[in-house]
């Protein structure tokens, strides 16, 4: 099987804090990490390869330093990685990102399975996965919490999808794009040997010239949406600490909650 995982480098939002005085993002010590959902995507690609054979390709689009997330993917066992990086891709919204990624996947060749995380933790849109599937003309299965089976002879996959009120068991022909949730697996850690190998690896970079794209559909200009304003929300101030004995504070708390007229 030829499997592609799409991953993104994101700021570790654990470290993102708002300065209460200036109300801007505090950036000191903000590390860049692989989007957590994408770690599950790479792991699922590796597990699928181990079970059914094949090769795992990992792609990311981003600035040159995004190469770090590809090194991590190499260190845990990805066979091929590619950085899609060009100033002309900067400012891409979800439409332009999906368009560019889809062309990179086409360049990799006929694939059987594309795996994405369900969303990235910086943008939280969950739109790029469905966008890539649509651009590739592939069916999509989103919010996958388990791959039940892949039938390579009949080119079919059966998965469990995590919906609000239960699990949907769905099947699709291959090739297919799936987006995965956290429950699907436990991402492995890189071995020392893997880290050493990844550190020495030459990672190919694809620029806009390397992809058969319509340049007008890339980057900021190709993006239907644009951000016109960024602001920090009103900080949610700490409220009232109800001090004293529980015998007094519990009825007081209930009084306050009943005032909201939600509990009937």
């Amino acid at each position: 099987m030829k499997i592609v995982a799409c991953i993104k480098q994101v700021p570790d939002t654990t470290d993102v804090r708002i300065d209460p005085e200036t109300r801007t993002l505090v950036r000191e010590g903000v590390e860049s990490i692989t989007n957590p959902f994408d770690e599950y995507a790479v792991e699922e690609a590796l597990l699928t390869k181990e079970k059914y054979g094949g090769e795992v390709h990992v792609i990311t689009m981003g600035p040159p330093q995004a190469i770090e997330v590809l090194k991590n993917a190499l260190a845990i066992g990805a066979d091929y990685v590619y950085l899609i990086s060009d100033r002309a891709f900067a400012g891409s919204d979800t439409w332009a990102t999906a368009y560019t990624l889809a062309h990179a996947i086409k360049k990799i060749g006929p694939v059987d399975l594309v795996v994405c995380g369900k969303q990235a933790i910086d943008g939280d849109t969950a739109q790029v996965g469905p966008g890539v599937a649509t651009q590739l003309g592939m069916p999509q299965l989103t919010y996958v919490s388990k791959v039940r089976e892949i039938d390579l002879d009949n080119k079919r996959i059966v998965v469990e999808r995590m919906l609000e009120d239960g699990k949907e068991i769905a099947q699709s022909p291959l090739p297919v794009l799936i987006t995965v949730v956290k429950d699907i697996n436990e991402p492995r850690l890189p071995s020392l040997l893997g880290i050493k190998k990844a550190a020495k690896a030459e990672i190919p970079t694809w620029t806009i010239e390397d992809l058969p794209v319509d340049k007008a559909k890339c980057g900021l200009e190709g993006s239907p949406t644009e951000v016109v304003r960024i602001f920090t929300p009103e900080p949610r101030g700490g409220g009232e600490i109800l001090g004293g004995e529980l015998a007094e504070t519990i009825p007081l708390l209930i009084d306050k909650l009943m005032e909201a007229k939600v509990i009937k």
Partner: protein
Amino acid sequence: MARLLIDEEACTGCEACVEECPYVALEMKGDVVTVNEKCTFCGACVDVCPVEAIALEKEEREGEGLDLKDCKDVWVFIEHKKGKIANVSFELLGEGRKLAGALGCKLSGMLLGEDVEECAQEAIKYGADKVYLTESPVLREYRTDAYAAGAVNLIKRHKPEIVIFGASTQGRDFAGTVATNLYTGLTADCTGLDIDPETKLLRQTRPAFGGNIMATILCQKHRPQMATVRPKVFAMPEKDDSRPGEIIREQLPIGEDEVRTEILEFLKVAETVNLMDAEVIVSGGRGVGGSDDFAVIRELADVLGGAVGASRAAVDAGWIPYEHQVGQTGRTVRPKIYIACGISGSIQHQAGMKTSDIIVAINKDPEAPIFKIATYGIVGDLFQAVPMLTQEFKNRLGR
């Protein structure tokens, strides 16, 4: 290609832009600011520069897809399951009414399914002037191919200015596909929508970076302008049984053989987890200490008719299934009341719940970060406080 232009003469080196940039893309080189390759052209620096030394240059080009001047009306996607409309769709009809009012146009529902005319009538009672309806056995259950084909057909034929969807799993799966097909913009998970009084464009405001920043987004040259909106952001409108409305039917352009995926089975979860719809959520964290101990959390949730949530710590410990996880790698919720029991309130947990109307924190540790965002806090042992709350609510509510 776009460029960020910095007027080195005008730049006073005040560093206001450096502070503002969410992407760490601006740095000082001597007395003036320079831009590095991390820039995403978000424009935050342009707005903040006191001397207008920064400008965003972008090549103007015509949009594709629907012609701008042909488009009118606000549409709401009417999501339903087995003939029952999702609450978020009603909420969006209420908000859509306001947007249509600001634009002076009609509000329409977009409905797909099998034998769902009753839903169309229901949408009209909740504010739709028209409902564009496609019925087919192929649409009995939601599947991306079938629903997207139906929606793209309706949108291309009737050319709405704006289409809004609930940000449910279905809405997000669906809207992303429809927008890609139409080559138009889609803004995810909006918490605010309004019409710019001058340009008449839809201003779409949404949280990013785990809710640490808000962004307002426009879709200027592509139509329709599309957004998904989280449940419970907007209020339920009043129902009016006497409202008239029109139903416009169109055929589904594809047949069953063109739908690639198939639903084999649906396993409803034994316990009602539906965190998205719950008005009240009672969540347990590390402080709960074990799976059996989640009983105290469940009892309180039951008395309040609420759902049970959990922090990542409790899920990773195996005390409760992942479906219950609230936070960055779980679900984002917005109930009226969120009661956090034994949850310290990491930034990742906060990302999933801090827009709840009322937050109650019960924790032994007075220094726990959860108290910084809680509306009401009780410093104490959850195993004493939560059962007392349950009992007292039972007494008051007569349950």
